[in-house]
Every structure is written in structure tokens, then in C-alpha cells.
């Protein structure tokens, strides 16, 4: 009897606790998993995508902003006018915008930010974005006139990059460790090696964020990422590091699995000035020897779209060149013979940590071995990769995903780690810059894609898919990632 009573009491109280907890407001904090820890938090001073993944749109804003469909939206500039000759852009800034430290954001800050990025000794990782700018002038407290020295079709898009965000002169130097921006979230704390915390900016000029707190937890190990999701330690992964786990999450009703696309062209980067890769026939032979679908199935468990050039398949200017080099070992051997390597050769492939590179590298090594090209696999950490491969171009081959949007222009750079250095391609990109009409631009982009494919500059593998996994009650996260960002401004919990 006594026992029954006790159970009754217990059940009733449990019910009360249950009801009261569900009546409570929905959660307002989000913990998001990220694979890489950013080197610092200043998007105007580093190429690492990990920086933008935390601060873009959340902490820092630019004149314009790129939305989840890749379109340009007004941000700090509420409107703009473009002169008839398309060389003068007049930006009207939002009034009453304050930086997180309480100072006003006005025309002076815009002039300062753009001039700082353009300056001779600038440490901006994407100086090319600012190259067309001739001058930046303040014409009123909230009006800025930017004059270009050449017609630049994608200028408003460029101003939406994380590298072009507006910073304050007073705080710019300290942004690496204590970022001060104008966004809906303020930087709160960074426990190195563990997590980064943002809190809501209650004085935000626009629509306030729904979350009060956002924590980015750094989890480099895919297995640990699986456990963290399963245990609920992390609410969301915008891009889960282990594609093989997608099936497992799909079958679990607690999670929403959203496969989207990214701007990540995953390529077998090739050092174009290093023998034997300076020979176009060798590069073409490699292109014939690669079996893209096997790489996608083996390394990405089927997630990914094959590409035949350095261009995103979801972009309207995309040309399908995947048939240019149909998997053909006889053709590959033939080309190697013509290039003077009938028995193949030996080379080194340096692989950064992501599974697309480590697994992809093993598969590619086995595929190239069939035509006599023997690859020695050298796994490297990101820091080493940036130093040896990206900066010093001390490499033969590597695999990496280029996640910047519309980045075919990197092939025209004088100094870029592919060492492509083709005057023909550079001229083409110059022409693109000076072309404004959409159809004309797309025609040039198509020509550029074909040129890269014909010369087999790199091994073009696949477009990286975005493996989004999050708690099914979290809404507002981006399905695709047109920019390297985790825009949390519209994220909320339904429960």
C-alpha cells in the first residue's frame, strides 16, 4: 500500500516537473560544432575559412552581405547608386549603427576599413577584391563614394566577402583576439582549443538575433564529432566532418540531416611549374587515370557532384566538362609515353587532415598506380600545409577544397600555389573584370572553365557537399554555404 502511494506521489511530481519544463520558453542558446579552430578572429587579416565561419555576419558586417542563396543583400549600406559609367558607387550607410564597444559606425570607418585593406602593407588575404578601387571618399557623415579604376562586374559581391567587413580604427588592431564589429552578436570569450562564445548584441541596429548565446565548439576528430552529436553536447554541425555518419543520423529521429552544396571545388592541386607536372601531357594523363565517381563513393560515401573544371555546378554559368577526360587508362598510358614517361614516375602527395583529402589521397594513389605513377603519401597538419604547400609551393600534388565563392580568378594570380602562370588565362580574367553584361560574363566564364579543363591545370574531382546535421528543433540554419559562414542571425529553437 505504502509503496503504491509512493509511486503515485512520484508520478504526479514527475508529471508536474515535466509539464513545467515544457511550458518553459524555447532554448535560446546554441552550441555549434566546428572542425577547425581559427588562428585568430580577424577576417580582414587571414585566409582561414575557420575565421569567417565564426565571425561572418555574426560579429562583423560589410557594406553588403551575401545571403544563403549567394545573392548580394544590403548590410551596413542601406542603399547604393551606381553611376552610368559604372565606375562610381555611392553607398548610403545605415544611421545609428554602433560598434560593440559603443563607438559610432559612420563614413570614416568605411573609408578607414577599405583604405586599410587596400594599403601597401595590408595583411588582407584577398587583396584582389580591392584592386579595382581607385579611391574611397566620405561625402557626408553617412555617405561614402567609391571610385573604381575599371568596370568591375562583381564589385558589390566582393564587398560582401568576410575580408571586406567594416572595422573601427580604434579597435582594428585588436580584432584578432577581441573582435569588435557591428553585428548582432558580440564576442564574449575564447577558450583556446575548446570553444568560442558569442553573446547577443542588445544594441544591434537591425533585427535582433533570436539566440542569446552561441557557442562554437572545436572538434577536429570525426569520431569525437559523432559522439558529441549523439550525446547532445553539440546542437548542430553546419558541415559534419564524417560523411559516412550521415546514414546513422538520418535514421535517428532526433536529428535533421540536410545535404546542401558548398562553393568547395575539391581538386587534386598540381604544382604546374615542377617537372614532370609542367608537361601538359602528364597532367592530362593523370586526368584520364582518375575515376571521379570512385573517389566520391570511396572518400565521400557518395556525397558530392563530379566537376570537370574549377567551377560550382549550381552556378548558372557552369559548363559540364566532366566528359572531357573520360576514365581511360589506355589513353593515360599513351599520353605518358608521349610525354617521355612510358614507365610512369614517382611523386609525393601531401594530404591535409580532412577526410576528403586523406581518404581521397589513398584512392587517387591507387588509381594513378595503375598507369605507373607512384605516389608517396605524406599526411600533413593544416599549419604545415599552409606553410609548405600554400605559401612555399614546396609540393608535387595535394588535395584541397577551395571553398571561396566564384574563385576561378585564383588561376590568374601571379603567385598562387598552382604556379599556373598562363598569360592567356590572365587576359581572359581581365576581360571578365571589364565585362558587365550577364550573358557576356557567362560566355567568358565558360571559356575559362574550358581552358582550365583542356590544360588539366589540376585534377578536378568533385564539388564538396555540405553535410548539415542538427537537432530537428533548430531552425534557420543555412542549407547551402555560398560563403564560408555560419550565419546565426535568424536561428531559433522551436522547442
Amino acid at each position, binding site marked *: 500500500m505504502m509503496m503504491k502511494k509512493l509511486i503515485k506521489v512520484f508520478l504526479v511530481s514527475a508529471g508536474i516537473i515535466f509539464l513545467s519544463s515544457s511550458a518553459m520558453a524555447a532554448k535560446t542558446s546554441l552550441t555549434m560544432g566546428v572542425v577547425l579552430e581559427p588562428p585568430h578572429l580577424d577576417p580582414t587579416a587571414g585566409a582561414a575559412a575557420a575565421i569567417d565561419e565564426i565571425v561572418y555576419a555574426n560579429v562583423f558586417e560589410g557594406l553588403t552581405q551575401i545571403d544563403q542563396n549567394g545573392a548580394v543583400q544590403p548590410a551596413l549600406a542601406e542603399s547604393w547608386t551606381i553611376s552610368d559609367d559604372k565606375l562610381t558607387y555611392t553607398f548610403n550607410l545605415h544611421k545609428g549603427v554602433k560598434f560593440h564597444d559603443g563607438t559610432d559606425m559612420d563614413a570614416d570607418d568605411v573609408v578607414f576599413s577599405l583604405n586599410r585593406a587596400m594599403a601597401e602593407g595590408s595583411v588582407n588575404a584577398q587583396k584582389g577584391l580591392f584592386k579595382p578601387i581607385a579611391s574611397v571618399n566620405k561625402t557626408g557623415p553617412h555617405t561614402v563614394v567609391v571610385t573604381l579604376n575599371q568596370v568591375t562586374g562583381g564589385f558589390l559581391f566582393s564587398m560582401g566577402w568576410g575580408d571586406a567587413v567594416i572595422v573601427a580604427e580604434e579597435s582594428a588592431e585588436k580584432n584578432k583576439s577581441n573582435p569588435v564589429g557591428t553585428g548582432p552578436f558580440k564576442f564574449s570569450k575564447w577558450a583556446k582549443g575548446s570553444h568560442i562564445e558569442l553573446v547577443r548584441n542588445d544594441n544591434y541596429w537591425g533585427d535582433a538575433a533570436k539566440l542569446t548565446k552561441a557557442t562554437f565548439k572545436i572538434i577536429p576528430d*570525426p*569520431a569525437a564529432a*559523432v559522439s558529441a552529436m549523439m550525446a547532445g553536447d553539440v546542437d548542430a554541425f553546419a558541415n559534419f566532418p*564524417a560523411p*559516412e*555518419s550521415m*546514414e*546513422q543520423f538520418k535514421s535517428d529521429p532526433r536529428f535533421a540531416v540536410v545535404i546542401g552544396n558548398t562553393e568547395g571545388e575539391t581538386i587534386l592541386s598540381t604544382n604546374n611549374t615542377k617537372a614532370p607536372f609542367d608537361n601538359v601531357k602528364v597532367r592530362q594523363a593523370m586526368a584520364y587515370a582518375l575515376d571521379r565517381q*570512385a573517389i566520391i*563513393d*570511396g572518400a565521400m560515401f557518395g556525397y558530392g557532384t563530379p566537376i570537370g573544371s574549377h567551377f560550382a555546378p549550381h552556378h548558372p554559368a557552369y559548363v559540364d566538362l566532366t566528359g572531357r577526360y573520360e576514365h581511360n587508362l589506355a589513353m593515360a598510358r599513351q599520353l605518358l609515353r608521349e610525354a617521355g614517361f612510358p614507365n610512369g614516375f614517382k611523386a609525393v602527395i601531401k594530404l591535409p587532415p580532412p577526410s576528403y583529402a*586523406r*581518404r581521397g*589521397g*589513398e*584512392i587517387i*594513389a*591507387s*588509381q594513378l*598506380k595503375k598507369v605507373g605513377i607512384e605516389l608517396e*603519401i*605524406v*599526411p600533413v597538419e593544416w599549419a604545415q600545409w599552409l606553410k609548405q604547400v600554400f605559401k612555399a609551393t614546396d609540393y608535387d600534388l595535394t588535395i584541397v577544397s577551395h571553398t571561396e565563392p566564384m574563385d576561378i580568378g585564383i588561376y590568374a594570380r601571379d603567385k598562387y600555389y598552382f604556379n599556373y602562370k598562363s598569360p592567356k588565362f590572365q587576359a581572359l580574367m581581365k576581360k571578365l573584370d571589364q565585362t558587365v553584361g550577364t550573358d557576356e560574363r557567362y560566355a567568358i566564364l565558360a571559356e575559362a572553365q574550358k581552358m582550365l579543363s583542356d590544360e588539366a591545370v589540376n585534377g578536378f574531382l568533385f564539388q564538396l557537399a555540405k553535410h548539415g546535421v542538427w537537432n530537428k528543433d533548430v531552425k534557420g540554419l543555412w542549407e547551402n554555404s555560398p560563403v564560408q559562414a555560419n550565419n546565426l542571425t535568424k536561428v531559433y529553437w522551436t522547442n
Partner: protein
Amino acid sequence: MPNRFQEVFQEGLQHRNFIIGGTITSAFFLIALMSYVWTPHSIEDINIAVKFAKPSGDFWLGTDHFGRDIFSMLVVGARNSVIVAFVAIGIGAGLGVPLGLVAAAQRGWTDELIMRVNDFTFAFPALISAIMITAILGPGAVNSIIAIGIFNIPVFARIARGSALGIWEREFILAAKSAGKGQVRISLEHILPNILSILIVQATIQFALGILAEAGLSYLGLGTQPPAPSWGKMLKEAQTLIHMAPQLAIYPGLAIAMTVLGLNLFGDGLRDILDPKLRRSR
């Protein structure tokens, strides 16, 4: 000497641990040796089309996420474990035993110096120091051999010194001394043969530890590099696939556990048989 072997062998036949351990160990060595001549499939054969195949006549234990034959990988992985552990023991014993003998023969400050340096090395947990060494030298099979070898040195030095000290007190050493033999000759002709059995037992145990350490280092990505297979690396690769294909983790895990168990039983049995003190009491 042949008499002694016969004796050991006969005693061994009555020792259960020794038989079980010896069987597992010799199977392990045979499989490792076999991999030089024949494996069912080439381990470099990546064939995505047959990934996660079920065990069949063609693939005895099925295939992994790259469509490679798991059995072939285990076999080549066994060879890899043997080489790493064997060479590492060679380094450990090759440097450790002479150091221990010198310390025991010289005594005094030489002894102090050698043993304190040993203590210093020994104070670091073995795997941590191996990780440190591979972090400095860079990942790779050769560096993991060096790393495992280095932490084996103090183990052998200690055991050699400890056992040698006891022998130095014995009458026959006194006799050898009076016959005019020097320290080096006595160490090599009288001390070493008398502590050999203890060293052999220690070597089998260190061998098992070496296999574990190699698996650990490879698991952390510091040991054997792809495409060469290693049990530790197979475990690592299986980690995120464990819900999809648990067999990928089970097979190498079992291989490691069985081999280490076998070596330990073998070492245990060997100690019981070889240890002179135990023998006398029997």
C-alpha cells in the same frame, strides 16, 4: 646446451600456458611470414565497387570501406607489427643489456650515472615518450621503431643490471677473477649466459608491449603511414564507421588482443620453465 633445450621443451609440453601461448605466437609469426609470399588479395587494390562486402569465398573476412580485403590487410598488418616490435626490441636489448652489464660490473659512479639516466627515461610513461619522439622526428614506421626502441632501453638495462649483480657475488665469478679474467670477459662469458633466460622472458613481454605501442602510435597517426596497413591504423579508420560496419574494428581489435595474449602466455610459461629458482623449488 642441446640437453637444456630438450629439458625446456619437455617441461614446456606439460605447461598449459606455454602451449597455448606458443601456438598463438607461432601462428602469428607464420602468418606474418606468409604475407611475404602470398596474400589472398593485394592490399593496394582499392576497388570501391566491392566496399563493405560480406565475408565470402573470395573475401574471407569481407572488405573495408575502400573495398580492400580485410584478411589480406590483417596479414600484412601482422608482418608490420612483427617488424616494428622486433627491431624495437633489438634496439632496446642491444643498448640496454650492455648498459646494464657495464653498470653491474663497474658499480660506483658509472653505475649511478647509467641508472639515473635510465630512471629519467623510465619516468616518462612509455607511450607518451613514444608520442613525443615521433612528434619530434615526424610520423612514420621507422621513427615509431626508434621511439619504441628507446623506451625499451631502460627496461633491459634494469633487468640486466639487477640480475647481473646477483651473479657477480657468486663463487664461480670469484674463481674467474682469480684466474685473471677481466670485467669484460667475465661479463660476456659468465654473467650474460646466466642472465640470458631472464632476458628472453623479458623480451617476449616487451614484444607484446611493442605490438601494443605500434598499434597505439598508428592509431594516433604517428606510426605506419598509408597505404601500408597496420592494425592500429585499421582501428582508427574503423572508428567513424563503427555503426555501419563494426567488423572493421572487431577484426583488427581481435588480432591485437589475441597476439598480445598469446605473447604474454608464452612469456609467462617461458619464465616458469626457465627461472632457475622456480625450477629448484619444483
